[in-house]
């Protein structure tokens, strides 16, 4: 398989290529422009010099007099050092004899080149390229007229060797190339720094990895059952998934698009997120009531080094969590319950068998009759009076547990439950009774003296639940903190039980009162009808 080029290498290569192409185009233009300019300049320069010499009074006079004292040579010798890119100035008289030449031996000899006719014969000024005695040269020809400007008395050829122009061009080219290499180096370093910077920003991830992560993140956010809300450091929502919208039961008009960017407190007035932004402290397994939903939430700050840049909350509907937990622990509880009941049953058989072997027949009969009576009583109450299967099952399981713990649990014969208060579920009632009876089972003694009494009364207006035990009661100092989440007098307990009980009763518009005279007496009243749900 072909190895893929990494993003930062690709960026570096791309930028470098762009720099190289740009520089090459610039070089091409610059070189073309400069060589043209150098040649033009050389031509203009040659022509200017030739015109200047052709019009020089000194030269005209010397030529008219046939230059007996070599003044033309001196003139040219004086002029040449001050001129740029002029190799030679050859002044020729009308007979074609040189009066000046860089090589003194050539003075007095006939001009060579073959391109001088237009100047010598037709009096034209022009530039031509030809090979003379000094080599291939570019030369400017200009006719020289007498002082009256009537007759051509000679011409002047001002030349520069082509090699010298080429050399000037090459020098210019070298400069351009050097500058370009410098620019290329700067461009290359820039490309490297840019690619490294991009790599750092993208945490070293390749584009396909980023796109895969994005797809995974989106899929994950929507696949999980937990609600997720993230906020930035100002408390504005930056992320919310479908599960969050479903759990928080936002009404119509609230979709993901219009929730994003809103302040979290505007959407969830009692949210704990601003507190996380302020303190930077994570919170786990906190229960919170939002409207009619109780959620279990974890909130953690999002940190960039030591700076809090946002917070994220994950939460689940508590009812769902409870249901899940019950599903998971249900089998275990069932096994425990069966074993406890088996133990209890075997104890009873053992007692009957023992009494018979000890020939205490009357005691055996009394024992059998007591057991049967108790069973019938509880069975009657739970099947006839308590007509909700969940509540019946809870009471039966607590009865069995109490029996196993040597605690007497009495369900008042007058107890009655035929329907539930409006907007309350069987799980709510199970949660209230279950938590309170568990607390009582922990509070009373296991030596046979422990007693728990339960009474569930219902009429058209109210549901009353009364639970009494003869345990140690609750110290006055603890009574105020009872319903605070996290408060527990028991070891290894999370302190959620009474908080949940109070929440359910409050949501149902009911009341709970506590009397600790000789144990604990809970008296709970919940109205049966409440009108509209949001009242």
């Amino acid at each position, binding site marked *: 398989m072909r190895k893929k080029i990494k993003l930062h290498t690709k960026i570096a290569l791309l930028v470098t290529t762009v720099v190289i192409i740009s520089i090459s185009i610039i070089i091409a233009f610059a070189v073309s422009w400069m060589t043209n300019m150098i040649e033009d300049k050389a031509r203009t320069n040659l022509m200017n010099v030739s015109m200047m010499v052709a019009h020089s009074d000194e030269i005209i006079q010397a030529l008219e007099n046939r230059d007996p004292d070599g003044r033309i040579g001196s003139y040219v010798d004086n002029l040449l050092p001050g001129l740029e890119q002029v190799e030679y100035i050859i002044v020729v008289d009308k007979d074609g004899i040189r009066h000046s030449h860089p090589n003194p031996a050539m003075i007095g000899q006939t001009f060579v080149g073959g391109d001088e006719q237009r100047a010598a014969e037709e009096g034209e000024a022009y530039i031509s390229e030809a090979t003379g005695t000094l080599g291939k040269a570019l030369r400017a020809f200009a006719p020289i007229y007498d002082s009256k400007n009537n007759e051509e008395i000679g011409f002047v050829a001002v030349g520069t060797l082509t090699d010298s122009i080429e050399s000037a061009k090459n020098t210019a080219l070298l400069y351009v190339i050097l500058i370009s290499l410098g620019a290329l180096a700067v461009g290359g370093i820039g490309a490297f720094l840019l690619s490294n910077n991009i790599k750092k920003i993208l945490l070293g991830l390749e584009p396909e990895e980023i796109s895969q992560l994005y797809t995974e993140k989106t899929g994950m956010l929507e696949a999980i059952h937990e609600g997720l809300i993230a906020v930035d450091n100002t408390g504005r929502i930056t992320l919310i998934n479908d599960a969050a919208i479903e759990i928080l039961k936002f009404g119509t008009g609230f979709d993901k698009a219009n929730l994003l960017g809103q302040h979290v407190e505007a959407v969830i007035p009692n949210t704990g997120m601003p507190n996380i932004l302020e303190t930077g402290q994570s919170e786990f397994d906190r229960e919170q009531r939002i409207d009619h939903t109780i959620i279990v939430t974890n909130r953690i700050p999002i940190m960039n080094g030591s700076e809090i840049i946002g917070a994220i909350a994950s939460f689940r509907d508590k009812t769902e969590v409870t249901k899940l937990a019950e599903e998971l622990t249900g089998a275990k509880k069932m096994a425990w319950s069966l*074993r*406890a009941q*088996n*133990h209890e*049953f*075997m*104890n009873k*058989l*053992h*007692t*009957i*068998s*023992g*009494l018979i*072997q*000890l020939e205490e027949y009357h005691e055996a009969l009394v*024992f059998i009759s007591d057991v049967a009576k108790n069973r019938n009583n509880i069975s009657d109450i739970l099947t006839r009076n308590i007509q909700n299967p969940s509540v019946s099952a809870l009471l039966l399981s607590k009865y069995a547990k109490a029996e*196993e*713990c*040597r605690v007497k649990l009495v369900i008042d014969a007058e107890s009655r439950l035929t329907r539930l208060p409006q907007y309350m579920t069987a799980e709510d009632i199970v949660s209230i009774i279950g938590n309170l009876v568990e607390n009582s089972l922990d509070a009373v003694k*296991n*030596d*046979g003296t422990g007693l728990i009494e339960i009474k569930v009364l219902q009429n058209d207006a109210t549901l009353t639940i009364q639970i009494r035990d003869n345990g140690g009661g609750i110290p006055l100092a603890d009574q105020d903190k009872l319903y605070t989440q996290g408060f527990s007098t028991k070891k290894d307990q999370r302190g959620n039980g009474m908080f949940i009980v109070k929440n359910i009763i409050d949501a149902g518009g009911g009341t709970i009162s506590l009397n600790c005279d000789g144990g604990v007496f809970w008296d709970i009243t919940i109205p049966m009808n409440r009108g509209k749900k949001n009242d």
Partner: protein
Amino acid sequence: MIEVMIVEDDPMVRDINAKFLERIEGFKLCAAVASLDNARKYIAIKKPDLILLDVYLPNENGIDFLKWIREKNIDVDIILITADKSIDRIQESFRYGAVDYLIKPFNKEKKSKNKLNM
């Protein structure tokens, strides 16, 4: 005379077992307790030779008591009394040095036979 302590939370079962014991020659009941806390307390005072230990006690487990006995190096024989025939539990009790086990409901003949085989 072999001194016996009964650990059993059910008062009726405790009474029946105590009465069975009284009818077996050579054995004497020195204590009958309902919880492991009391068992720990009375084991030091009464120094029994044998303990009849119920495995299931409210919020407690007889096997844990057996482990405690072995940790403390207390010289006493233990017979476990259980309502189930769980092989794992019985094997575990033997690992911790229980001399025998009885499954409820049992009769006084079984109890005396086990003790005489000790």
